[in-house]
């Protein structure tokens, strides 16, 4: 009798557990196929020399990782992505925040501005790159500049500023960083505006009653309340900017010497240009680790800042 009850209970319990597993099974299968398997396959490939086609793969252990440590071009590409990220973190996010603050107020046509500011992120990166390539074109026809920027500069008699914007190592990467920021500020604007609108208006009214000025209100209410949103925007900016590459390809093609190389263009070069899939996978792993460490550190700093 006891056994039968136990058996029945055990069966019901098993059925319940099995049902639960059955419900999550599709998600587990999809996750395993599209995330876990590729991850381990990339890890496996990173320890091989493989041309991407042949059936044979040569196991070389950590050889690819050792080579990456000595690959100056790879590390300079990380530096370039870092520079683009720095411009995005400062210029792009400051612009996004300033515009979000403006649109958070009761100004005329604020809905129109919200749409306009969100337009660049909606555009394709290839289209943006090609448009800016035309704007920054340094070519001439019959002695007149073809590029819009150089043409404008000559029109306002600033001929000394006419420049080979995309073929000069001193300006090419900055041009890419500025265009990347121009394209990216819109989504930062939307997130920051959403964050601003979650701040309780009564806090501002109370501060106003207490005689707090605009700057004081901004410093003591807006900024502290926005810290979690800032952190999220910063993490997304870092992840998005470090992985920039479509814009680079559409603006300077295969690159100006090595001055416009970013990590993803190097991974692509290893994979398609040199047929070194193993090395490309190793680069991908190293790059992923760098991004993870960066995001983790930023998260830690923000938690500490919040506690203080």
């Amino acid at each position, binding site marked *: 009798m006891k056994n039968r009850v136990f058996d029945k209970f055990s069966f019901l319990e098993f059925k319940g557990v099995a049902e639960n597993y059955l419900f999550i099974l599709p998600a587990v299968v999809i996750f395993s196929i599209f995330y876990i398997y590729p991850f381990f396959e990339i890890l496996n490939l990173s320890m091989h020399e493989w041309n991407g086609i042949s059936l044979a793969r040569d196991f070389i252990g950590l050889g690819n990782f050792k080579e990456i440590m000595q690959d100056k071009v790879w590390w300079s590409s990380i530096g370039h992505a870092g520079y683009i990220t720095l411009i995005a973190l400062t210029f792009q996010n400051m612009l996004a925040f300033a515009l979000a603050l403006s649109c958070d107020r009761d100004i005329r046509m604020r809905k129109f501005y919200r749409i306009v500011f969100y337009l660049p992120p909606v555009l394709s990166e290839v289209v943006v790159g090609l448009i800016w390539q035309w704007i920054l074109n340094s070519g001439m026809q019959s002695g007149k500049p073809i590029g819009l920027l150089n043409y404008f500069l000559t029109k306002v008699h600033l001929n000394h500023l006419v420049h080979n914007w995309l073929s000069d190592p001193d300006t090419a990467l900055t041009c890419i960083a500025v265009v990347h920021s121009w394209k990216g500020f819109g989504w930062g604007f939307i997130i920051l505006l959403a964050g601003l609108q979650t701040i309780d208006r009564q806090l501002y009214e109370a501060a106003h009653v207490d005689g707090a000025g605009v700057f004081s209100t901004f410093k003591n209410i807006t900024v502290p309340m926005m810290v979690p949103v800032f952190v999220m925007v910063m993490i997304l900016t870092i992840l998005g900017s470090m992985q920039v590459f479509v814009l680079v390809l559409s603006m300077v093609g295969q690159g100006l010497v090595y001055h416009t190389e970013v990590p993803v263009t190097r991974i692509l070069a290893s994979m398609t240009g040199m*047929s070194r899939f193993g090395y490309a996978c190793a680069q991908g792993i190293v790059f992923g680790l760098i991004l993870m460490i960066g995001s983790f550190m930023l998260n830690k700093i923000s938690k500490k800042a919040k506690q203080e």
Partner: protein
Amino acid sequence: MGCSQGNQANVVNIWHWMTDRQEVFVELAEQYKEQTGIEVNFELYAPSDEYSKKIVAAAQARVLPDIYGILGEKKKRAAFINSGFVADLTESFNASEGAWEKSLFEKALNVNRFKEDNIYNVKPGIYGVPIDVTNIQMLYNKDLLTKAGIKGYPKTFAQFIKNISTLNRIGIEGLVSGWGETWMVDCFASNYAFNIMGEEKIMATYRGEVPYTDEDWIKVFNIFKVLRKNNALAKGIVAKGNKYAEQDFALGRAAFAFNGSWCVNVYNDMNQDLNYGVMLPPVINEERPMSIWGGAGSSFVVNGISENKQQAIDFLKWLTAKDQQAFLSKKTKNLPANRYALSAIPEILSQFASAMDETTHPSIWKYNENPLVSETFDKGIQSIIIGEKTPEEVAQAVQEVKVREIEKVKKRSMRQ
């Protein structure tokens, strides 16, 4: 897709990247269906970079179509063949006393041929079918040269530089090309390497027997210094894609261009009034001929594991026959692969065709340079053009990479 489609009886599937030819291909496929009852599907995947990635991914997944093209260096082609993804067509070419082989330009066929002593361990044979031929030369804008008072076109490099300064004086830019695409810089440099030192010394360099710091290689790098010093290159050339360079030449923004025979079609679309001629790159060493890159423009291969192999071969035989080649050439303004179809081509294409004897190509060389060394070489040239490095510095940098890569290969072979 791919093999699953290829397994359908009387259906041949083809993947390609040639955006300008899709319509004509479809037209030819309809003609073929009318004649034989066999359906041919041309599937276009562009741009070529994306197409290349698709082919590699399809090979990894074993879903290649019945017919496809392999873009890139011979090493890649060899990897496809050694993995069984490409059918050996030698027997088909040899049938009927080699009639098919004889009808095609030898140089075009050589791109698809692996000889007895090839370094890729590929069984000797012919593994692809050229559907057109191409070569890369220089073009000159006749109207701009006339405007500058220049008669004819330059035959030597010294004359070329002199012409450039004349053109610059009246505000016309000299040479434009898509040197933002490094293979085009590589091609230009390679032409001059052949002219300055000849094939044997280049191959010896690739084998690691001659260093890049050799005086002849310094001369090759120095060409770009001379071009820079004499303001011979269009502004922004190192970051320019070939499409933009083609636009610049077609719209008369530069007097000279370095481009392939496909440009005839492109220029025709951009500016039908463009009055231009074709010339070999002006020689530096008058005692040695100028070699240019050329041969098969686009080639198709037959999937080695396709069940429709014979149908695929029959279609390619039909596609490269005289009538179809003349039709393709007329419609797309590309040079035909079939020598008997040459009589129907326009004058400007004839000028390109007349230099076919001067052509060479990395695909037919016995040795190819390590891709990392090639990248350092091409990027180094870009740095000379922007005035960042001297020819000697670039030569040194390329040699360092070369030595490192040789060491790596040695270590690997010792391990094995």
